[in-house]
């Protein structure tokens, strides 16, 4: 018995010509430092962003969240239109991406088509994630908007120019689609085969099995996929900037130009003049931080509740 433990200890040592090194403690510490560094960087970023937004917080306080007047010329800054635009585009994106992404995931995990056909399809869906966002933006300007314009103009009674909230949301939905689809597919694939077989054996049809067994069994993973997608949609900058119209106002219709937090940061940071302007941009960035955090917390609570109910 004692011999065995000694052997185990010995296995955790690195032999060098100079002697032995204790491998476990070294590895342990390296991992510890790496783990703490991640947390450290997060806290550091938060502190810097919060610190630099202090002048704006002092000046505007909660009014920043209820005011949509953004006027750098007279030092009046309100962030409501950006917060609204960020949340609205992300929600539009998810409204398209969740059903389509989940549909792709189901299609790829059921045996509708032979594996030889499905593999290239799933590869191509994942390839969508590899396209740089500026390319999505250009594609939006040069391909998507000209195609959509007649429809948007008809829907908006002639006032739409093609750029706006809806266009940005739609483009975002394509960008988050691979995240939602590929993770959902992995989740559905990992559900034990016995579950679906049992359901089919009880006389359930394929669709009953999908909607009553497979999707409920994968809920937590699918929600995770959606949250990751939502995270990308909230923070996406370049592509949104290029198609949203960049108008700092609460849009009167879903087809009107709007603005997001990430887009205003990208546009105005370089030439921000005056401390209050810069600080207000930091404040907006801080709000984006808070929104993302809230989304993640809500998702976590939701996933926990679902898995508790299951037990």
């Amino acid at each position: 018995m004692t011999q065995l433990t000694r052997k185990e200890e010995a296995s955790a040592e690195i032999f060098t010509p100079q002697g032995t090194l204790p491998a476990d403690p070294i590895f342990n510490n390296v991992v510890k430092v790496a783990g703490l560094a991640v947390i450290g960087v997060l806290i550091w970023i938060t502190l810097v962003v919060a610190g630099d937004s202090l002048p704006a917080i002092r000046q505007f306080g909660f009014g920043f969240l209820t005011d949509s007047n953004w006027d750098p010329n007279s030092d009046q800054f309100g962030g409501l239109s950006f917060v609204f635009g960020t949340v609205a585009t992300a929600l539009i994106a998810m409204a398209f991406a969740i059903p389509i992404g989940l549909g792709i995931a189901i299609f790829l995990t059921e045996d509708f088509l032979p594996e030889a056909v499905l593999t290239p399809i799933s590869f191509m869906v994942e390839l969508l994630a590899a396209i740089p966002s500026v390319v999505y933006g250009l594609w939006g300007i040069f391909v998507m908007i000209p195609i959509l314009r007649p429809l948007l103009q008809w829907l908006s009674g002639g006032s739409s120019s093609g750029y706006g909230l809806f266009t940005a949301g739609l483009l975002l939905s394509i960008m988050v689609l691979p995240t939602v689809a590929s993770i959902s597919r992995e989740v559905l694939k990992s559900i034990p085969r016995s579950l679906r077989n049992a359901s089919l054996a009880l006389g359930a049809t394929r669709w009953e099995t999908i909607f009553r067994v497979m999707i409920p069994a994968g809920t937590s993973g699918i929600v995770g996929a959606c949250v990751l997608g939502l995270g990308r949609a909230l923070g996406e900058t370049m592509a949104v900037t290029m198609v949203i119209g960049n108008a700092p106002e609460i849009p009167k219709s879903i087809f009107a130009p709007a603005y997001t937090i990430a887009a205003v940061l990208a546009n105005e940071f370089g030439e921000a003049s005056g401390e209050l302007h810069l600080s207000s941009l930091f404040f907006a960035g801080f709000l984006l931080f808070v929104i993302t955090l809230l989304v993640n917390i809500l998702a976590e609570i939701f996933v926990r509740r679902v898995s508790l109910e299951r037990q």
Partner: protein
Amino acid sequence: MQTQKWTRRAFATLVALIAIASPIALQAANALDLNGAGATFPEPLYKKWFFEYNKKNPDVKINYQAIGSGGGINQITKKTVDFGASDAAMTDEELAKAPGKILMLPMTSGAVAVTYNVGGVPSGLKLDRETLAGIYRGRIVKWNDPKIAKTNPDVKLPNQSISVVRRADGSGTTFIFTNHLSAISPEWKRDVGSGKSVKWPVGLGAKGNDGVAAQVQQTPGSIGYIESAYASQNKLPVATLQNLEGKFVAPSIEGVSAALEGTKFPENLRVFVADPDGPKSYPIVGLTWLLVYDKMDDKAKADGLKKFLDWALTDGQKYAPALEYAPLPASLLKLVKQSVAQVQ
């Protein structure tokens, strides 16, 4: 054993390489490195200048980061660069924040063109002063508005909504454009004012001159303002605008030179030509400035920068027209050179 031999060989090669490279490294250390940052509008010309100057003076290397006028002002104030650049010069407030006296040196000038995309309407649409301001204030919303038709009796204007396009990022171009609108329209001055970013009454925001140019090309019924260089590079139709004397003038280098010709320059050389007089003047023009401390910390850098500035203000000016910038009038060049002489 094999690995050790390999490592040793690699090490020997590395040492040899360093030995070979060291004279080059030493030489590079002797050479003068000047760093600047700021405005994007003059970047093509500055890049050309630095390249040509480096060809003639291989020991002087000038780096320029086009981070925007605001960034350029910040960096020169903090002394993290040797020179800054700005399309809006510096305000008295900004000058007061700097730890020393900053000289504002006009280097070149350019025009801001108004471009449009209206089904089949060629270059040269005439927009009078009231109409231009009216469109950007959101008061004129259709292309066949009587106010536009009045000055363009020969043009068939469609019954189409006007999509106003403007810069979303803070920019010197916006400053020049809004400064002109403030000069020609009291309502604009009251409601919006002038600045590098303003609260626009209407319109779609696009990033950069190229962004506005692309958005105008892609959106039927749109109108936008861009540096005239971008308009001619992209062969976009440009409007002829009404100047102070009521004449309609197309953007051109001659139009800019004419606009600057009669301008009186104050001692600090900061002048915004919001609404130039003269019959041949193009109405929307602007200068762009280099920002330099009159007393620089490093003597060698001060001398190097002075020599470059003198070159840019003499030989350098000839590179401007090819890149769609207007050379400065001789009277102004003389003033700027006097200013450069103060640098120590």
